[in-house]
């Protein structure tokens, strides 16, 4: 009969004690797996959110973190707004001239390349204008490029897809410039779908509602990014909402666009009347990102922040200590569970001394009886560890749909965080260490005394 079988029989014989000790460990391991999984989900969500598909965020001077939180996460309040001309600096003379011609503005703007145009290459610059809300969700004025050029996902290669409808266009025959696309979470919680009207409120969730509404033409698939929690509207329509036009300076030189008498489309804001909250920039080649960032930040009006760097700083500020706290909880939980094993086995040692003495009388060596106790610890560790680990994963898997809906992160049954790989070995090691005390007691058991006890 192998020693492991003897240990297993001892485990089974003291059913209640063994089960309670194992349950203690099971719950401990499940708690640790739960904590690690939550940490993993948070980290993954941060990483995914940081993968915004652009390498620079440009906004007014101020806190780079606030800019990132505002432009990428749609959190925090905008620092200020940038003049539209700052956005135009990312385009060459032709594109700038077209903007002047379409919106109206100083013709000189179209006579030169933008300061940053040479850095963009095959990349893009996408304007964002924030300030309005739909319920608790941010309304983001932007251009169709947002959906055509931005990518998301772990490898930042997935285009935005639509559960329903389509992206908005520059101007549609049916709704002109008043089209909107809603993120998946917004659609679910606000109970809106394609064809519904969306009226933003100005300034804050309880602000005054704009009279002009937007027709929802698309509902995005979940992305696991803050875009799930936003409403995107055509920037041109956004500008036309009440209170969104910047007053024109008296000395401004504006050449207004020519307009057909039969044209019933809305008159777009001129360039001096326009502002953007931030600009998402992807430059190519990406090696030029740093010089571009420096060039922008050296200017008077704006700053450029690298969102991944800012998010990593935030991670190290918040998630770093959180990780340490979680690791401390993990260590304490494992330690308490190991002490539970020690106490349970040690308390049973008085009942076992005669059994140990009998085995010694049958020829068992001291190290054999020591190993039997250690193997019993090992059984508790493995049963408790594996059941706790698997049970926690089943529980997390069962909550997978909810987690995916909230974070966009798919949860597989055996999706593991990195640290989990070490969990079972650590539990086994701690259990063996805990088993050493009763094992040494077994080692020292006096045979003759206990045979006749």
């Amino acid at each position, binding site marked *: *009969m192998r020693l492991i079988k003897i240990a297993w*029989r001892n485990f*089974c014989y003291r059913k209640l004690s063994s089960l309670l000790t194992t349950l203690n460990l099971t719950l401990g391991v499940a708690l640790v797996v739960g904590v690690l999984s939550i940490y993993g989900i948070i980290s993954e969500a941060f990483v995914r959110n940081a993968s915004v598909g652009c390498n620079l965020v440009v906004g007014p001077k101020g806190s780079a973190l606030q800019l990132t939180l505002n432009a990428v996460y749609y959190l925090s309040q905008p620092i200020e707004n940038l003049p539209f001309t700052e956005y135009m600096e990312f385009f060459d003379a032709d594109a700038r001239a077209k903007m002047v011609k379409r919106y109206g503005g100083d013709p000189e703007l179209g006579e030169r390349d933008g300061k940053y145009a040479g850095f963009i290459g095959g990349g893009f610059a996408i304007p964002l204008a924030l300030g309005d809300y739909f319920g608790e969700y941010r309304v983001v004025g932007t251009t169709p490029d947002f959906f055509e050029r931005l990518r998301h996902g772990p490898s930042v290669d997935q285009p935005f897809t639509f559960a329903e409808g389509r992206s908005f266009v520059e101007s549609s025959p049916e709704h002109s410039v008043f089209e909107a696309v809603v993120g998946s979470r917004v659609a679910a919680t606000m109970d809106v779908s394609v064809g519904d009207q969306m009226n933003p409120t100005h300034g804050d969730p309880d602000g005054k509602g704009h009279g002009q509404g937007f027709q929802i033409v698309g509902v995005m698939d979940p992305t696991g990014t803050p875009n799930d929690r936003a409403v995107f509207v055509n920037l041109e329509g956004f500008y036309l909402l009440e209170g969104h036009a910047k007053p024109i300076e008296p000395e401004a030189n504006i050449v207004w666009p020519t307009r057909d008498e039969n044209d019933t489309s809305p008159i777009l804001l001129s360039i001096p009347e326009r502002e953007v909250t931030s600009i998402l920039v992807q430059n190519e080649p990406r090696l030029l990102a740093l010089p571009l960032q420096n060039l922008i930040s050296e200017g008077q009006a704006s700053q450029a922040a690298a969102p991944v760097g800012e998010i990593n700083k935030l991670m190290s500020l918040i998630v770093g200590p959180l990780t340490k706290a979680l690791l401390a909880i993990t260590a304490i939980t494992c330690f308490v569970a190991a002490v539970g094993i020690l106490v349970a086995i040690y308390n049973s040692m008085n009942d076992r001394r005669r059994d140990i003495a009998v085995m010694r*009388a*049958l*020829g068992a060596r001291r190290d054999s009886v020591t190993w039997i106790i250690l193997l019993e610890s090992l059984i508790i560790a493995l049963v408790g560890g594996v059941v706790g680990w698997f049970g926690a994963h089943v529980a997390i898997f069962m909550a997978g749909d909810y987690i995916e809906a909230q974070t966009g992160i798919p949860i597989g049954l055996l999706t593991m965080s990195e640290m989990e790989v070490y969990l079972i070995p650590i539990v086994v090691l701690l259990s063996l260490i805990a088993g050493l005390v009763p094992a040494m007691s077994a080692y020292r058991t006096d045979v*003759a005394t206990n045979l*006749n006890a």
Partner: protein
Amino acid sequence: MLKLTDVIQRFDQPGGGQLTVLDVPSFEIDAGEQVALIGQSGGGKTTLLHLIAGLWSATQGSIRFDGLELSRLSEQGRDRFRAACIGYVFQTFNLLPAFSAIENVQLGMTFGRQRVDIDRSRELLRRVGLSDRAHYRPHQLSVGQQQRVAIARALAGRPKLLLADEPTANVDPASAETVLNLIIESCRDENVALLMVTHNLEICERFQRVDQLEQINRAFGDSEHSKQTMAPEDSACV
């Protein structure tokens, strides 16, 4: 096969000094021989068995078993010797409660060098009349049945010497007869030498050789010794 020469066993006294419990100038058992050792409680019988089994190392003297000098063996060596050569039947049976009858028998083979022979464990249980109780736990067996399992376990490792420490003391007279017959006949069938410690004179009638502890243990003769030199375990088995 077994030869004790000038074996002395002393124990430390709580107040200092040592007490001599056993002083055996000479004691021998031949292969297959069956010996009853009779003596009063506290006379050092259990101490003698523990020394022969290698559970203790003698303070002084020689214990040779088939030419092997036990006093020269390490504790591990004595463990191996015990597993290979000694079978032990206790007064209180000492079956392990977590194991079934057949598993208790198999434990008798577990710690030796030979592999666990399931057929032999079944055969031994059949021989002690407990084939139908093979999977019963000790608490499901009567005391007589428990002692029969203990006999099967003691023989499982094919020992050369079976030590029986008052094996009938805790069973009823009818069961005692059965247990005694089983031990004597099984040892004869397996050519195992038997040293049975008892203070029951009726049992001694079944043995060709009966030794009195008073005659082989010089320490026993001293009445002062007999009171003072009891090892705690000797007093415990009274």
